[in-house]
């Protein structure tokens, strides 16, 4: 009996926190169908807010910002993945002391506070007169994305059986072939998840982009455009629609991949038994 009450309280607590955590998200999604900025259904159930994504006088700018977000995320995550994957192979083969130093420096963009990283890059770009605009943004994004790629590839290299690579060499593959045909396929899952991570980090970034975009260029990503637009007048109805779409996409993707991973892990454990 006591146990039942305890487990009820535990579940109740979990539920309360969950409701609070998701209330803003759910409310936003519900009211995205109201075409109002202040949470009323005076206009009834409508898709106006979703239409406004394409028809509002702000939509050209909005779509440009979305385009920029994808452009910067794609370029910087591809560069970060290629550089990070090669770097991991290199770092893995470094001497012990150099390797530790490089790994520590690699860790820095991750542990550092974002605002400090942002202003340090800004000082750097100003001091060496880098041209304002995409170049600065893409370099900055590569700088904070690559460490995540390295962190996801290195463990794969560590867990790889070095004999496999040696065997390929003994069987007559040249080192390049042994690397592309043997090593790369083994570490591919790490490279892939590093790429996804880099892409998401770049898409998600606000602070570093905001500080390095330069006021004069007029370049906006989705997050900096949201900030510049919503800071002053609050959220217009079409933002509700955009946020709802983003919520749904992200929640579905993350939940989907993780449920898949967990259930796959369970299956494996069962098979092992």
């Amino acid at each position, binding site marked *: 009996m006591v146990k039942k009450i305890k487990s009820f309280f535990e579940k109740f607590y979990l539920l309360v926190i969950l409701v609070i955590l998701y209330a803003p998200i759910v409310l*936003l999604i519900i009211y995205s169908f109201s075409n109002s900025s202040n949470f009323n259904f005076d206009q009834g159930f409508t898709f106006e807010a979703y239409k406004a994504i394409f028809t509002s006088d702000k939509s050209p700018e909005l779509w440009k910002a979305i385009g920029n977000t994808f452009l910067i995320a794609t370029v910087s995550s591809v560069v970060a993945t290629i550089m990070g994957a090669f770097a991991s192979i290199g770092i893995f083969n470094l001497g012990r002391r150099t390797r530790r130093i490089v790994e520590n420096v690699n860790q820095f963009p991750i542990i550092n506070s974002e605002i400090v990283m942002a202003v340090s890059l800004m000082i750097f770009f100003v001091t060496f007169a880098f041209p304002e605009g995409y170049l600065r943004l893409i370099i900055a994004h590569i700088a904070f994305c690559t460490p995540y790629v390295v962190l996801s590839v290195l463990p794969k290299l560590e867990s790889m059986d070095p004999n496999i690579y040696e065997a390929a060499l003994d069987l007559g593959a040249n080192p390049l072939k042994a690397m592309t045909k043997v090593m790369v396929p083994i570490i591919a899952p790490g490279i892939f998840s590093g790429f996804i991570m880099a892409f998401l980090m770049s898409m998600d970034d606000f602070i570093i982009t905001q500080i390095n975009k330069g006021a004069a260029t007029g370049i906006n990503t989705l997050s900096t455009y949201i900030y510049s637009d919503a800071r002053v007048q609050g959220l217009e109805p079409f933002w509700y629609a955009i946020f709802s779409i983003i919520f749904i996409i992200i929640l579905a993707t993350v939940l989907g991949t993780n449920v898949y991973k967990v259930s796959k892990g369970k299956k494996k454990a069962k098979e092992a038994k």
Partner: protein
Amino acid sequence: MAKIKFKKLRLTKKVFSIPYILFLLLFVVIPLVLILVNAFLDSDNNLTLENFKVFFTSRANLIVLGNSLLVGIITTAFCLLIGYPVAYICSKMSSGKIIVLLYILPMFVNFLIRTLATKAIFIAMGVELGMGTVLFGMVYNYLPFMILPLHTTLSSIDKSYSEAAQDLGANKATVFLKTTLPLSTSGIISGITMVFIPTISTYAISQLLSNGKIFLFGDSIQLSFEQGLYGVGSIMSLVMLAFVLISNLIMNAFNSNSNAVRRSLW
């Protein structure tokens, strides 16, 4: 000819790290050194200690710093108080891995969007924007960062410890206080760091949730640079860096494989 080239490649696979090492030097190390240099320069690039004097004698700056630390401490405390039970209950459940994911999910949505969503709701409910809403927004934003490392640590604790304690006659409260809690210290420390550091250096959240009334350290760093006060801004960044390094040292001392927690973030 080609063969010789490949042989060389094999001997020196570490050359692959050189482009990235150069990149790190150029875009991570040098920018940080520039902050240090700028802290000692006045607006005409002469060496000076004036910036330190300006920062550490300005009441306004110190109040912002104090406020940020206060907001950071309160937020961290709330996240720990709310998050620990969540992580603990989930770690005991068989499907806890998926349930805890629900609490971490919001982390993947851009913080600006989440903050603006909460702000819109506060305005619609007629709640006055101020310290209360800022604290709510911070806890709301950073709770997942507390739950994640706590859950990782708690679910990796071997159950036989608490069973042994129980067999030896400890009651439930004692079992928790004397075995589970001490064994989860590394998770607590990671959680505290992952909430405290971003909170004190947060930019934009507090401004948005207080209509510009409450200003935190991250905001004043940004503002100094926007106003061209590179010297003072650099000092503020150094202060922030000091917090980052100290908390990381503490974290590493408690948790020799802190990487494991960070990696499992994804």
